[in-house]
């Protein structure tokens, strides 16, 4: 798995999330010392076997009646737009991943979906996806093995977030879980105004490729309220995520209803 590359750098048409210089300390990711602790193990790395090689993203286990829902970025599920391609290859979620280790096992996806608008328009304002995973080799359901966050929709944009993920581009290597703690909402991307749908969110956090899909949590890390979508190469300190509105709620209910 160490050979995996950030998926977001492999997909044509994606903005690259890459760093050309170390980020300022104010927005720096910090390594989570022990990703197997209760608060951190709901976050994990996603590995996808594509014809182009092994890609990777980040994701979060979310509480649902089927105990098996993972939230991530839509572009880790489908390339987006009317001609989008599904990532219906081998797609696995590894909670608490560190240095190639799988402390809670591997949870392969059996169902993937994105917001409807992502599939029809590819709009960045709807870049949210979900997967329903099967049991790990020990026969455990995901949320029973590692727990899950709550999920909230329709909240005001002005929140203070903890940003989680497995950035794999320099200066990171994707082998450790990273967190930007208590990062306040900065504003909306100006370009977000040009596409239909809820305006996306910006926070101060130096994400790189591989962090896509990483959870943005509020309320002390207990409630998922966005996921990392993209950044700009000429401003590595700013991370953009989708607003969780009605369409994301519909996605959650679809995923939660999968048996």
């Amino acid at each position, binding site marked *: 798995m160490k050979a995996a590359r950030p998926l977001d750098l492999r997909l044509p048409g*994606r*903005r690259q999330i890459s760093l050309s210089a170390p980020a300022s300390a104010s927005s720096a990711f910090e390594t989570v010392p022990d990703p197997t602790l209760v608060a951190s193990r709901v976050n994990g790395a996603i590995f996808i076997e594509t014809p182009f090689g092994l890609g990777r993203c980040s994701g979060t286990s979310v509480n649902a009646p089927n105990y098996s829902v993972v939230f991530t970025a839509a572009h880790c599920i489908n390339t987006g737009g009317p001609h989008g391609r599904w990532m219906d290859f081998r797609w696995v979620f590894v909670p608490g991943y560190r240095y190639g280790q799988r402390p809670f096992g591997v949870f392969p996806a059996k169902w993937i979906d994105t917001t409807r608008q992502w599939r029809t328009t*590819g709009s960045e304002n709807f870049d949210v996806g979900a997967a329903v995973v099967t049991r790990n080799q020990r026969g455990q359901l995901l949320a029973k093995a590692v727990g899950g966050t709550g999920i909230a929709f329709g909240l005001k944009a002005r929140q203070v977030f903890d940003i989680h993920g497995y950035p794999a581009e320099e200066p990171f290597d994707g082998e450790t879980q990273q967190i930007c703690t208590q990062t306040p909402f900065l504003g909306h991307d*100006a370009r977000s*105004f*040009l596409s239909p749908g809820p305006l996306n969110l910006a926070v101060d956090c130096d994400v790189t490729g591989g962090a896509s899909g990483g959870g943005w949590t509020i309320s002390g890390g207990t409630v998922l309220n966005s996921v990392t979508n993209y950044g*700009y190469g000429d401003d590595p300190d700013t991370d953009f995520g989708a607003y969780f509105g009605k369409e994301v709620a519909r996605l959650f209910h679809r995923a939660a209803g999968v048996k």
Partner: protein
Amino acid sequence: MRLSTLSALIACALCLLPSLAAADPLDIPAAAPPQFRALLRAKLHMRPPGHGFESRFTLKAQHGYTITVVGEGDVVVVEVGRPLSHGKRNPLEELLGFKQSVTAYVARGTVTERRIAASFGKFGKVDVRFRPKGQVLESGPRRRCRGADHFTSRLGVFLGGVRFSGEGGYVAVRSHRARGRLRSPLHLDCSSSRHRFSNRRARPVHGGPSFVPTVLAASRRHGVSSLELLTLRVGKTTLFAAINEESLGSMARMRFALATAPSKKSLVYNEALTRATITPPKPFHGTGTYSAASDGATTWTGPLSASFPGAPRLPLTGAEFKATLTTGF
């Protein structure tokens, strides 16, 4: 210069802009005039965003400015610019609605066939209703279209209230009535190509010299604000484009400036690509100098600026800019 060449230039420019390079196709500014967007979409092989309509009307303001209100989808744009006189018009200016530079204020709002409404915070508010009056115009049919092959424009008047005042009062307008139109569909999906190749048959490829333009790009971005300059030299002509974007709470402000000039004097660079100087024409001012050291460090300095409505002489150089210079071999 023919419009097709210019639009290709712009399309190349957008492809090469650092942050736009890998941007989602929907990132073409909706604030830009429809013809600008349509050209770019066509050149970048983008799928039109579907059926719909566009409502628009224009008001005259002081200092020669016009204010155009455009409603499309759930986006309302107030676009401020100063039209060029007819004698100075060229195809490039047509891409920005016959303006050298525009400032667009973008907000989410209500856009229906009967109404345009949006709040622009401290800048003002638009709330008008469309009353069809007069002719229904149909454009000439286009060929090789999927779906509609022509535009239908319904003329009429917008009644209600428009109150808008730019930063520092550089432009202000208050109106209760304006003539405008509602046009549908939003875009035509027509092919401009005379030849369609079949994918079922192999076809010969004729090799030739590579076409690699010289590009000098400089940008700065912090949080939800960015300023980008692109200089694109293709043959004897150089295109200069500046885009300034800023998110202002519940709305965004976008500024665009475009110009072309003969390459010989407006973009000068050495063979080693360690130094370049640009001197673009209006609405740009001054010169910008690019320098690259042997360790790869670059600087982008000089008194270069661009004038946008409401932002005269916005500096386009400085230590916070990241600059690159590339060309073919």
